[in-house]
Structures are given as C-alpha cells and as structure tokens.
C-alpha cells in the first residue's frame, strides 16, 4: 500500500527516546509510590460525599495534603494554582536531571487547564497559555511552550508532537507534561451525559456502568540521547486518526483507532505479533470499551496481554495518556504486568487477553492507545532499548 520511499524517509529520521518519567496520582504522591500502590492493587478511587452540587460520586481525587507535602519539598516561591502545583511537581524531577537548554521545548497536554478559576476570575484566570508560560518561566525555558488540547488523547498526542518536532530538527529535546484536575465543571458535565458510574469503574467488564473521573499529572523527557548504561524507551511509531463519525460517541467499527494502530505499526516497521503489551484507554463506558475491543481484534491484538488503568486512577482526561504511559514504562522496566483493575468477566463482543493477575513477562514493545470526544484516537508504540 505504501511506497518503499516512505520506509526510506522514516528510516532516515532521528530516533527519539523517553529517558525519564515522573507522575503524581491519586494512588501515590510520586512515581515510586504509584507503582508500589498498583502492585498492591490499591486504587485512588474513593466515594466523595459532596462535590460541587453533586453528591456521592466516585472519583480518583488527590488529597490536598498530598499535593501540599510534595509542593513544600520543592521550596518554590510564588503563587501557583492547585493544577499548576500538580504540573510542577511532575515536571521538577525531569528538570533536576537535565536543565532545559535554549532550544528545549516544553509541551503541555491538558483538556481544561485552570477551568476551576473561570467562575471567579473569568476567562483570564482560566487562560491555558498564561498558565504554562508561568511554568516555562519558572524553569527557564527560552522557547514558547506549546499546548496540545485534543480531548482525552492529549497526553499521548503530546508525546507524538514532541517526537515530530525533534525529528524535524526544531529542537533537540522536549519536556512533555500533562495534567487535569477533578472539577465540578467536568464532573457536572459528565453527569449530565449520564456517563458516570455509581461505583468504581470496571473497564471492559460485563457489569461496567460508565466512567469514574480522576485527576493527576505526569511528565516524560524526550531526547535523541541513548546511552549504553541506561534503559530507555524509543518511540518507534505513532499516529492520530479521527473517526470522522460523531462528536460525542466513538465509531462502531473502531475505524479511527484501528487506523491509528495500523499507522503506528507501519512507522515502527513491526507486526502486531511483536507487541507484548496493550495499555488500552478503557473508560468503562459501554460504547468506548466495545469500540476498542473491535479495533484491537481487527488489529490482531486479541491475544496480547491488555489492561486499562482507569480502575486505579479513574479517567484523568488530558493527563490519562501520559500518566498511563509512565506506568507502562515501569511495567516494561520491571517486566511486570499490571492487573486491569475492575475487570472480571468480559463485557465486550471481541476476545481480549485482559490481565487478571500480577505476573512476570518479558516486555520489550508496548502499545498505548487513547480515544476521546470528537472521535479522536492516538496510538503510540514504544520499545525498550538497552
């Protein structure tokens, strides 16, 4: 279908690696604690008795004390919003490892930014550009930050965008940070869609009842550097193809996700058989999980170990893809599969190999996918090096 010329172009492109990662989640205050929590089967999802005007909702909320404790360790002066603190907490470990150079690119993935400010301060306080510029200034970035705002695929798409910028030679490295907050704004909207589960979400399960919302932040550092001493993760393929079907419902045939997975495989020059792990989007809505099962089946991934991490974090929106990618990388580093929490009996029409037990498996190549409102889809393939 595609010409040999394409292969040639792709092969001549620079290789881009994820060399460090970090996160702040409702499961743990940092990456280590989050990973440990997942190993113990802990979920950050809890019942919240009162949230805005909503009552008794389940959500993956980060306690304010956790954010404050992490924040105080950083010794940063100045006034920042809760979300900004979450982003800075995630980003700081990357900066400590390597300071940004004059060409380093900062890329933010978020769906709503400081939307919690909107009612009080109007549009100015909710301006995403102002928010990320404050963070860029804090860490001394010289280039203008970029914001990827593409619904729930934003977190993974930001990695693709950073990779493309490095491959096009506009920067040598990129700091990708993603974050979204649990807010009455978003919760009331999802509730009006009647898309929220009245118990912790159960992705791909027969008894799933919808989405559980969450919040979190994550960061990864992208560069062309690959040293022999360290294990790094090459971004070997990615694509983001729209369903072009419906603004709030996924395609029944999983077309956009299927095409995204095919695009990522094609760029990587590998077959589905070579993928060791699939980290699905798995929001636990009826339509989404069904759509994903069709796309994975069409992509010949039905026997590949698969999980959704929404049972631990809830749906962290713009942060979801990146937060979950950070966990995938830990999983590959330790060759340790993470259980798809909330899954018991298949509730989708196609066979999937859902992970139900913590077990060891050699994990060299993984696929992370995301799908979101607007019929957006992103597939990202990473491979372990060294």
């Amino acid at each position, binding site marked *: 279908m595609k010409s040999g010329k394409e292969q*040639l*172009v792709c092969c001549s492109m620079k290789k881009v690696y994820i060399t460090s990662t970090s996160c702040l989640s409702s499961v743990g205050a940092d990456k280590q604690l989050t990973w440990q929590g997942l190993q113990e089967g802990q979920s950050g999802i809890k019942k919240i008795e009162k949230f805005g005007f909503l009552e008794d909702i389940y959500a993956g909320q980060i306690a304010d004390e956790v954010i404050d404790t992490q924040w105080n360790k950083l010794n940063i002066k100045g006034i920042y919003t809760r979300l900004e603190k979450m982003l800075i907490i995630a980003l700081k470990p990357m900066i400590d490892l390597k300071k940004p150079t004059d060409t380093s690119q900062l890329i933010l993935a978020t769906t709503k930014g400081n939307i919690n400010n909107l009612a009080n301060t109007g549009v100015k306080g909710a301006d995403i550009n102002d928010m990320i510029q404050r963070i860029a200034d804090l860490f001394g970035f010289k280039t203008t930050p970029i*914001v990827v705002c*593409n619904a729930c695929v934003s977190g993974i798409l930001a990695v693709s965008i950073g990779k493309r910028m490095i491959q096009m030679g506009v920067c040598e490295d990129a700091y990708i940070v993603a974050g979204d907050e649990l807010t009455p704004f978003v919760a009331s909207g999802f509730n009006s869609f009647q898309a929220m589960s009245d118990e912790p979400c159960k992705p791909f399960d027969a008894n799933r009842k919808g989405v559980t919302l969450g919040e979190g932040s994550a960061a990864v550092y992208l560069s062309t550097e690959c040293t022999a001493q360290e294990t790094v993760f090459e971004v070997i393929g990615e694509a*983001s193809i729209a369903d072009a079907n419906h603004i709030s419902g996924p395609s029944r045939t999983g077309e956009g996700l299927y095409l995204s997975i095919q695009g990522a495989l094609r760029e990587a020059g590998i077959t589905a058989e070579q993928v060791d792990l699939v980290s699905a989007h798995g929001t636990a809505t009826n339509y989404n999980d069904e759509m994903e099962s069709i796309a994975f089946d069409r992509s010949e991934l039905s026997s590949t170990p698969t999980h959704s991490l929404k049972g631990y974090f809830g749906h962290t929106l713009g942060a979801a893809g990146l937060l979950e990618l950070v966990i995938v990388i830990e999983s590959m580093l330790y060759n340790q599969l993470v259980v798809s929490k909330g899954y018991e009996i298949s509730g989708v029409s196609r066979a999937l190999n859902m992970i139900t037990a913590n077990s060891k498996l050699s994990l060299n190549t993984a696929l992370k996918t995301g799908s979101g409102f607007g019929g957006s889809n992103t597939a990202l393939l990473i491979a372990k090096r060294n």
Partner: protein
Amino acid sequence: MEQHKYSISKWCTVSEEVVKRFDQVVFEGEKGDFVAFAKAYYKTNEIDYPKFFKMDALSKLAFIGSECLLMDEEFDKPTSDIALLFSNASSSLDTDLKHCESIIDKDSFYPSPAVFVYTLANICLAEVSIKHKLQSENAFFVTPSFDGDLMYTQVKYILETHRAKQVLCAWVEYLEGKYKFFGYMVGSYRQGELEHTRENIKEIYRR
C-alpha cells in the same frame, strides 16, 4: 531526511462578518452578529447540513472557513488524504462560560450535555472531519497567537512522512463575540502557487 517543496494552494479568512478567499471578498454578512452571519453564509451557499445549527460558535466558525477551503476539492469519502491541524488562543472558553453559568447556582443548576460536549477545543476540528469524512491525522494546539512556525513544522512532518497528501491548517479563535478564522491548504508543489515557507505563511496571515 528528504526535503520536498510544497505549496499553499489556497487560503481563507473569516472575520468581522466577511469571508475572504485568496484575499478576495466572497461573502459579506450584516455587521455585528456572528450567529446571523453564519446562518446567512449557510443559506447563501445552499449547504444542507442540519447539524450546523446545533454547533457552538467556535465550531460554526471552523465549519464556514473549512467549507470555503474544501468546497472545490474532489476526493473519495472517507479519506485519510487531508489532515487537519487547528489552533487557537482561547481553547473552548466561549462555551466554557456557558456551561459554567449553568452550574454556578444550586437553584438553577442545569448542565446540558449539548453544551458540555463543546467544552473541548478539538470538537470544532471534529465537526469538520465529520462533515467532510476526513479519517485523517489531526491535532489541536493552543498558543497565545497564531504560531506559523509550529504549523509549518507539523505540516511538513505529515507531508514528508506521507501521512496525508494535503493539510488544512487553521487558526480558529472565538471568544465572546470576537473571532477570526485563518486557514490554508498545503499540498505538493505546483508551478505558480505560493511556496509553503515560514515567511509566506506569516505574510498571508498578516494580509
């Protein structure tokens, strides 16, 4: 990497109730009301797409501008040949304000799914992809002002890697009645067309 030449085959702006294509006025509406202007454009161009009336202002703006750029393109549907790269400064804040209004007071707490769905910037891009059946590469960026350099690089990547044959690039900004659409199509270089360079993008944006 191989370096190819590409051209900006056409461009269009929508602002102050005027639609321009290649700097020529192609439609002019009554001043002062975007919604009335959008409806007039729809009627005059005999567009038959009832979903248009459910859209928020940002999506209507993206729809009109994209219509102006795509109406004379011939392609099989669905297609992956035309990618979409959109950006703006205010994300979906115009509709965010409406949703916010509906949840601020307990006595009048009435969030609407029809409004909430438009509280994501990329929905305006989705509306264009759905209308024209563009099952293609797409991304939505938020930047303080139109970032021609960012667009140039991302467009070039998509074309160089053969992910699409053309890219529709657009700045789609709408906030509290103030708006601007600036869009252009990039594809293989053809003699006589404006070359796709950073300078030319900035030049046509300034016009």
